[in-house]
Structures are given as structure tokens and as C-alpha cells.
């Protein structure tokens, strides 16, 4: 089932995040903030804007290439997940039929323009989120969140969640396999069976939490956990942030695509 495969991909993105490249070594705080700025600049473009979105592809492409992330890993996820944007966007061509452009004599309605604008924005923002985790690692994100002054308690339980995610996924995979082995076709998937299976998983999880707590106590836990700080804000980080944000600013305020198009035109004359 595709949904299950998505879960295994957590492990794949996790392995990617331990590479050692320029972007992997950047301070996670900088990466989070720059990616947020990127998304804000992208979604702030007007709804019928399509050409001005194009220069923004530079950021995900940079992260992907500088971070040595395989294109397939990202593209597959972007193409296949979250039908919501497409589902809602597909109504635009049906409802907004005002003709806005006629390039080469082909009438293009506002609805199609805004639909493609949604699609492009979707690809840009979603691939950036995936690339952010692929070049940062989850503990890195948590470190950044803590240093960006999010409550420590929140960050610590987030780290716990991530650590035990893989453990509990294994437990539930074993349960699924056991169910498959004991049932044919659709049987064994009734709500009643499901409730019992998941209840057992829940009890096991709570018991595990108790054991973890006792193990922590025996190792001297007194309600205080230090979050590892591996990164330092260096001149590379500042340079990366300055260059990228000023690029976004230029792309947002100067119609780069138009300028390029005009120069090409005048050159061909």
C-alpha cells in the first residue's frame, strides 16, 4: 500500500540528512528561517502570476544539488502527495472563465492561469519543506527550534517522538504481518479487530513509556534534558542567508522573466 511506503520514506530522508555537504553543515536556524522567507515570498505573489514564480525554482534546485539529494526522492513525493491543493484548485478553470491573455491567438482564462499558479506554488513550497528536512536532519531541526526559543518541553518530547517513531513502526509492522498471516483477503480488517489491535499497540506504547522513564531515572534524570548544540552561527551562514533573501527580494519585486524575455527579443532583432 502506498501509504505504508510513505512511512518507510521517513527512514530514507533521515539517511539523506546525515550527508556532509555545504548545505548540510549550515546552521539549522538559518535554513529554517530562509526557507520560511522563501515560502512567504512565493505565496505572496498575486494569484494570476505565473511567470514571476519561475525564478524561485533556484532555491529548491540549489538545496537539492548542493545537498546531493537525488531528484527522484523529492519529485516522487511532490507528485504523489497532498491532492488537496489540486482538488481545490481544479475548480478555478471551471468557475473563472474570463479571458485574460491570448498568446499566439490562444485564449487563456483567468481560471487556468490561477490553477497553474497554484500548482507551481505547490511544487515550490512542498519541495522546499522536503528538502529542508533532507539537508538538516530532524535533531538539527529540534536544536534550531530550541534555540529559536520554543518551549524546551515541547522540543524534548518532539525528540522523543522521533526517536521512538522507528521503534513503534517496527512493532506495528510486526502486528500487521501477524494479522495478514492469519486472515484472508479483506477479513481481519473489521473495525472490531482493528480496535483490539490498536488498543494492544497503545498499551504496549504506554508500558514502553514507563520503562523509558524508569531507565531515565536510573541514569540520573531530574526533569532536565540538555539538547545537543552542534552548530554555531558562522560567516557562511550569514552569507547564505543574505544572498538568498536578497535574491528572493529581487525576484519578487523585479520581473526577471520579462527582462530576460525582452533582451532576448532585442538580441534576435
Amino acid at each position, binding site marked *: 500500500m502506498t501509504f505504508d511506503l510513505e512511512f518507510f520514506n521517513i527512514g530514507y530522508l533521515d539517511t539523506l540528512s546525515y550527508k556532509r555537504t555545504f548545505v548540510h553543515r549550515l546552521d539549522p536556524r538559518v535554513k529554517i528561517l530562509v526557507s520560511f522567507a522563501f*515560502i512567504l515570498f512565493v*505565496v505572496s505573489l498575486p494569484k494570476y502570476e505565473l511567470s514571476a514564480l519561475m525564478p524561485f525554482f533556484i532555491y529548491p534546485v540549489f538545496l537539492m544539488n548542493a545537498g546531493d539529494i537525488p531528484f527522484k526522492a523529492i519529485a516522487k513525493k511532490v507528485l504523489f502527495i497532498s491532492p488537496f491543493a489540486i482538488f*481545490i484548485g481544479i475548480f478555478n478553470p471551471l468557475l473563472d472563465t474570463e479571458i485574460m491573455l491570448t498568446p499566439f491567438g490562444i485564449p487563456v482564462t483567468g481560471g487556468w492561469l490561477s490553477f497553474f499558479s497554484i500548482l507551481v506554488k505547490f511544487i515550490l513550497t512542498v519541495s522546499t519543506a522536503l528538502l529542508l528536512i533532507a539537508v538538516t536532519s530532524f535533531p538539527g531541526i529540534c536544536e534550531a527550534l530550541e534555540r529559536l526559543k520554543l518551549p524546551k518541553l515541547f522540543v524534548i518530547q518532539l525528540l522523543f517522538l522521533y526517536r521512538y517513531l522507528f521503534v513503534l513502526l517496527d512493532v506495528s509492522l510486526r502486528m500487521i504481518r501477524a494479522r495478514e498471516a492469519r486472515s484472508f483477503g479483506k477479513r481481519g480488517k*473489521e473495525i472490531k479487530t*482493528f*480496535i483490539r489491535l490498536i488498543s494492544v499497540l497503545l498499551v504496549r506504547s504506554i508500558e514502553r513509556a514507563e520503562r523509558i522513564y524508569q531507565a*531515565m531515572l536510573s541514569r540520573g534524570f531530574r526533569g532536565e534534558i540538555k539538547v545537543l548544540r552542534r552548530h554555531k552561527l558562522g560567516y557562511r551562514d550569514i552569507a547564505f542567508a543574505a544572498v538568498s533573501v536578497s535574491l528572493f527580494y529581487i525576484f*519578487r519585486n523585479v520581473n526577471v522573466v520579462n527582462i530576460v524575455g525582452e533582451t532576448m527579443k532585442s538580441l534576435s532583432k
Partner: protein
Amino acid sequence: MHMADALLSPAVGGAMWAGTLGTIIFCARKLKEKMDEKMIPLMGVLGAFIFAGQMINFTIPMTGSSGHIGGGMLLAILLGPYAAFLVIASVLIIQALFFADGGLLALGANIWNLGIYPCFIAYPLIYRMIVRQNLTPRRIMIASILSVVIGLQFGALSVVLETKLSGITELPFGTFLLIMQPIHLAIGLIEGIITAGIVMYVRSLRPDIVDDLEGVKALTSGASLKKVLVVIAVLAVVIGGAFSWFASTNPDGLEWSIEKIYGKPEVPERTNPITENLAKLQEKTAVLPDYSLPTKNEQDNNPAWPAADPGTSLSGIVGGIMVLGLVLVFGIGIKIMRKYRAKT
């Protein structure tokens, strides 16, 4: 259903992030006050449990397709509202990063839609009010179904409002509502039955550990609800106010009001060299030029809002009174509930 960045405007996304961050900080403070150190590993492991549990699927009755649990309400029932909100937020953060569910800007809205309503409306106002101190199967069943359904209805409504306020979609408000609400009613019914089933079965398996969990303990000890109620009061006033504002205007309430507020033609500027240069300068220095709230059909020459048009101002007045009425009813409700609590 998860919102996506591509359908959000920066203003709506930012506002939802602000609300979500505020609630995270508030919940963390609340938990720290009466911190039970056991909670930290428990929260983390239960968050991981939600993921692991979503791997196991079941057949949805009558449709034959398979589904998996959401688990928000289950967390609220087990952990209590504050811890549950933090865990739901964590689960959604991981989903946004690893599954690209929506994106980073929409994450604030998603946490709000899937976290606030089960934790701060459905759990305290519905689940606790129905179950109170007697954890009988029937009460748990009714309470879970009702609270999951209502939590999800609020969530779906928020998705519609946030999307419409962002103005990227052309889908009319009413149609959008008619798509979203019934789907989430069906999802809510099934999720509610499953949630109740899990709570009851787990209690029969290991009553010792389950009754010790924060959310369940709060019921049996009859702890004070006052502080939770204050939070809900603030939320309800905001939501109720916003909702009655949309509902009380004309059929396409939302589009209409946005257009009236932001879509009116600009006041013609007198041309003089200084203002012209200033405007140019401003245009150059603005970080997000020509960004404004959505304006559809600006050429529509409807009167600016609030116009003296008798029809519109009437609905404005009615809406205003409705909001005040809601606030008043809510205030009285809290007072009555407090007295009731004090007596028992």
C-alpha cells in the same frame, strides 16, 4: 484534510502560525506548572504511537475502502488538553516535513485546525461534560462520537474559512462548505466509534495504567475546569464572532465582505511631484509590493462597505447584535457552570 501552502495567503498563514505558536507556549507553561516528569517520555511515545497506529488500516463499513485513525481526540482523552495539543502539533510537524503534507506555512493552520478544536472545545466542553465522573461504556461512546464529530466539523469549517480568506480558490463559499462538512461528518462518526472502542478496550485490558493518565485522571478526580473554560471562552468569542460575521451577511458572505472592505477603488491621488516620488520610493522599498487581500471583480461597482444602503447596514447591525448575543450567552454559560461546579 490538510491545508496546503499554495492555497494560503501570507496574512492568513501568518495569523494561524501566531495563534498556534501562542497556544504551544501556553500549553508548555501549563504543563510545566504541575510537571509530572513522567509526561515527557509518555508524550513522545504516544506521538510515535499515532504514527505506528496509522500504519494499521481497517475496512470502512459499507464502502470497502480502507482507512486509518486520526487520533487527535484519543490523545486529548488520554493526555488531557495541554499535553495532547503539543503531541498533535509534533505529529503534524513531522508529517509536514517528511510527507510534505501541505508545507511549512500551512503547518500553523493545520495544527490549529486539528489541535485546537479537539483539545480545547471538544474535550472539555463535550467529552468531560458528558462523561463527568462516571466512566460507563455508554457515556464514553456517546461522548467520544459527539466530541470527535464536533471537533472535526469545526476543523473542516476552519479549513474552508482559511482557504476562502486567502482568496486563491474560486470555489464559492457555500459549495465548498457543502463538500467539506458532510465528508467530515462521516469521517467523524467512524473515528468517534473507534476512539470510544479503544478507550474502553484499553481500560478493560489495563485499568491500572489507563486510569492513571492525565486526561482520564482529571475526570475521576473532578479537577477544576475553570482555566480551560477561560481559554475556550476567548476562542469561542473569536470564532463565534467571525462566524456570525460571515453568516449574517448576504449569501456569499465571505467574498462579499472582503470585497467591500479591501476591494474598493483607491482614492484618486492628486498628482504632485513629491507624492509621486514618495509613492515610487515606497513601491521600491516595499517588501511585498501590490500584495493585498484578494480582490475579485474590482470593477464591480457595489457600494463600499459599510455603505448607507439599507439592506447591508441592516445585516451589519443584525450581525453585530448576534455577536454580542453570543458573547453574552457564553458569559452566562460560564457563570452557571462555575456555580454548578462550586456546588458539587
